[in-house]
């Protein structure tokens, strides 16, 4: 075995706002990895959206050189992992690439849902875990109570928790010492055939695809011929290096090291997270376990509000797809919305992230249609079709049966919220598989139809459990269901973009909820606007938006002219963000918000 005792690889597990990024920044500063001048807040979250939402979407990494109290110099590799259920698989790969984790918990807030989901991933990956209590400078900090909570809820020893304030820099040295002293060094054999894990990849305009790898065994060098064991593709390595966090070429990566390679790879979709990189000539015997191809599970239509933006949307989507292999797209035409794209995502957050980026980075106003899962339509003639879009539903008489995807969901929840969680799962056609207790927490395992989960299940779960539930799921096959297509008619005209596929037993209540929602979401018009839900030709729910009775400024004299003109301009700008169906203006957010269920 090669001596790797000077290396420590770790990730940081934390709930949003508990200070993960700030701590990462302090570690970078304390080790002098970047100069003060280069330092900008939250070094590692590079995308605007990541910064704004406080979430990490792509795994980021940085190498820190630290001279410890024992006088030796250590190489510390920090991987900042994505932190959301949509990216569970990506997180699990990142976790497998390191040996330990810092569990950062806000000393005033305590353990929260996301912390749990990720810390269990770290435990699954056999990590050594160092609890770090942050924000101890706040008057509301209760480090002892929170340490106890960590022991009770997560079941790890928190007696040696490191007390810090990432904001003021207090305790940062102690964190670095804990990493060196308490986390294990990686293991690996430099003489064995190359075995490296593909942790993440992204597109760089100058370098092509950049691949983040963790070398397990063997040595990766510039000029090597490599093979991706899952895709089978072979490349010649152009560059090898580490992140400081800028890319620094080193020409070599040894066992236990984390760094990048580039190899004239043109598209991110040619690289699969979790794939094993080996040498073409002398490959390793077995790939790393646990690889899963990325598969979109949620589909929705994205249409430009202004039809003239279609080409711009196409370009933007193609650019984004370069950097995100997990997102698929194909052209779609809607009678109501014109030309757009049917896109597939890993989950709803992934969908929102992509939509935000299209709107923000490419400045395109979008209409997002109701998300849908992939149905298998078994036709009477034996043909099987994949259905990504309710609008493409074949004629009912030609359908033998419709199968929908199911998932197996695992939910960890404090006892006091268990009843609400069971009710939520039951309401979503769930079938309970397991219910066990661990202290004051329950673990429930449910089988659920994905179409009941895909939309707002996670939001609802968070809300009924005040954020204290963690949720994870895996796909669990297809099953026939009594499914029907429900149409929505606004002012007697069907709006195809609002069509959904629902379980027959749920149709009435879903139809009623959607009509009620749309009644709130669509502004009053100068005439009555009926909103109806229908299955086939049968109306199952109806609401009416009453006509606008009054919209006038009572008092308007000379002084108000400018103000009133600006108000009028604003009103007109608001109108432009709406889509006209017949004579009715529907705001773009209505297409997605109509699906959210409050109960």
């Amino acid at each position, binding site marked *: 075995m090669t001596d790797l005792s000077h290396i420590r690889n770790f990730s940081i597990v934390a709930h949003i706002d508990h200070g993960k990024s700030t701590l990462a920044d302090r570690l970078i500063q304390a080790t002098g990895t970047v100069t003060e001048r280069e330092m900008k807040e939250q070094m590692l979250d590079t995308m605007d959206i990541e910064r704004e939402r406080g979430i990490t979407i792509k795994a980021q990494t940085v190498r820190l050189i630290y001279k410890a109290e024992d006088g030796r110099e250590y190489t510390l590799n920090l991987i900042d992992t994505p932190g959301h259920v949509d990216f569970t698989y990506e997180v699990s790969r990142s976790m497998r690439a390191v040996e330990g984790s810092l569990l950062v918990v806000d000393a005033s807030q305590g353990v929260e849902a996301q912390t749990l989901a990720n810390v269990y991933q770290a435990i699954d990956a056999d990590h050594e875990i160092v609890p770090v209590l942050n924000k101890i400078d706040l008057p509301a900090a209760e480090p002892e109570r929170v340490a106890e909570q960590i022991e009770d809820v997560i079941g790890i020893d928190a007696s040696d928790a490191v007390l810090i304030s990432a904001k003021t820099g207090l305790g940062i040295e102690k964190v670095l010492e804990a990493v060196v002293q308490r986390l294990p060094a990686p293991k690996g054999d430099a003489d064995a055939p190359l075995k490296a894990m593909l942790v993440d990849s992204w597109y760089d305009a100058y370098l092509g695809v950049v691949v983040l790898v963790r070398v397990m065994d063997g040595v990766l060098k510039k000029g090597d011929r490599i093979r991706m064991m899952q895709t089978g593709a072979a490349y010649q390595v152009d560059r090898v290096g580490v992140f400081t966090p800028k890319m620094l070429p080193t020409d070599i990566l040894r066992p236990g090291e984390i760094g990048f390679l580039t190899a004239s790879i043109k598209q991110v979709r040619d690289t699969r997270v979790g794939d094993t990189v080996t040498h073409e000539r002398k490959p390793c015997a077995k790939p790393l376990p646990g690889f899963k191809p990325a598969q979109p599970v949620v589909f929705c239509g994205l249409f430009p509000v202004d039809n003239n933006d279609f080409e711009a949307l196409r370009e933007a989507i193609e650019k984004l797809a370069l950097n995100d292999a997990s997102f698929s797209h194909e052209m779609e035409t809607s009678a109501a919305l014109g030309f757009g794209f049917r896109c597939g995502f890993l989950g709803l957050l992934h969908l929102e992230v992509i939509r935000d980026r299209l709107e923000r980075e490419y400045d395109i106003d979008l209409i997002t249609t109701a998300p849908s899962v992939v149905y298998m339509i078994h036709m009477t003639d034996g043909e099987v079709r994949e259905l990504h879009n309710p609008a493409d539903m074949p004629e009912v008489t030609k359908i033998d049966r419709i199968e929908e995807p199911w998932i197996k969901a695992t939910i960890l929840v404090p006892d006091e919220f268990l009843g609400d969680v069971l009710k939520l799962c039951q309401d979503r056609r769930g079938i309970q598989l397991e219910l066990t207790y661990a202290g004051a927490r329950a673990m429930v395992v449910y089988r659920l139809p994905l179409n009941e989960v895909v939309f707002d299940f996670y939001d609802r779960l968070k809300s009924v459990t005040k954020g204290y539930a963690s949720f994870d799921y895996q796909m669990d096959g297809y099953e026939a269901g009594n499914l029907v297509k429900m149409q929505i008619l606004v002012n007697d005209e069907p709006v195809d973009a609002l069509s959904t596929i629902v379980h027959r037993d749920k149709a009435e209540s879903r139809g009623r909820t959607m009509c009620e929602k749309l009644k709130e979401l669509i502004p009053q018009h100068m005439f009555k606007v009926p909103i109806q839900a229908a299955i086939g030709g049968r109306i199952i729910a109806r609401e009416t938006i009453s006509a606008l*009775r*009054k919209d*006038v400024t*009572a008092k*308007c004299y*000379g002084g108000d002219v400018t103000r009133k003109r600006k108000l*009028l301009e604003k009103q007109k700008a608001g109108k432009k963000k709406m889509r006209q169906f017949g004579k009715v203006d529907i705001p773009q957010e209505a297409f997605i918000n109509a699906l959210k269920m409050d109960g």
Partner: protein
Amino acid sequence: MADWEAAGFGVYVHWPFCLAKCPYCDFNSHVWREEDQSAWADALETELAHMRALTGPRVAETLFFGGGTPSLMEARVVGRLVEAVDRLWGLAPGAEVTLEANPTSVEAGRFRDCAAAGVNRVSMGVQALNDADLKALGRMHSAAEARAAFGVAREAFERVSFDLIYARMGQTAADWEAELAEALEMAVDHLSLYQLTIEPGTRFAEMHARGRLPVPADDAAAEMYEVTQAVTAAAGMPAYEISNHARPGAESRHNLVYWRYGDFAGAGPGAHGRLTLPGGRIGTSTRRDPAGWMAAVAAEGHAVEAEEALSREDQAAEYLLMSMRLVEGADLTRFAALGGKLDAGAVADAVASGRLERQDGRLRATASGRIVLNRLLADLLA
């Protein structure tokens, strides 16, 4: 002919002080603290002179003292300002000179002197005809006091008008109809009838947000509006603007300058103006806080803090949004000359639904159109 000449030129003077701030009012008003009235007269005169320098020679057809509570001005101050406007521009023969007034006995005591100083029209803030509601509106007068003050004003001035606020807390359409009948008994030839509007930043807005202001719902308010149209028309004082009613010929000429989109010079804190200069039409606005306004006038001879050049598109929009408030509507030739464009589909829809009439080169909102005018305008303007 420049566009403004179709509507004339008026002068506005803003007196920013009140004895107390009413909870519904979002106008630029401040509580009176024994200001030096001579100093205010000097400063207002200085700013008027600045406006005169901008406009060049013109004749003022109207002069309006608004506020705040301009009836708190001493009559000699009113007189000085009337003289100043006459000296600077020249008041047209028979020019309308209006003073906004509160109906208290103190102010009524000054009416004769104000008339002697040149005021020939008073617009009185009566607001309600029962004491409980006056109190809820934060007014300092009683209904009886208002009636008495109005009686004095009728004797003192050639023309008098008063304001009422309706769709008040707890008010029903029947309540309002009865009050309106009383008001019509009292009125001479002009009445302003405003629906209570909850303006952001006011005390009412705060109460409304906390659910403590039981104002009628839109449907009920719309019904009261319809009642108002019918009852005033039957009494010979039909609406000539959204909230203003007069016997034909008795309209407020100064306000018509605004609504017909004429030019107007505005002096005093937070006063706005629209002036057509050789380089184009501009909007002016002055500093709002009285002390800052005073200091600016002392330092620079005026307190104009914003001069906005109005594009033709802006002017067309402003012309439409002001003129459509009037029952006479907009002159489409003028609108087109300003480069204004209408959404033909929206016009056709609104005509078909009876909210709009198009006739003799004019576009008018009907009574059912005026109650939703904001929405109508957003649809109409291409």
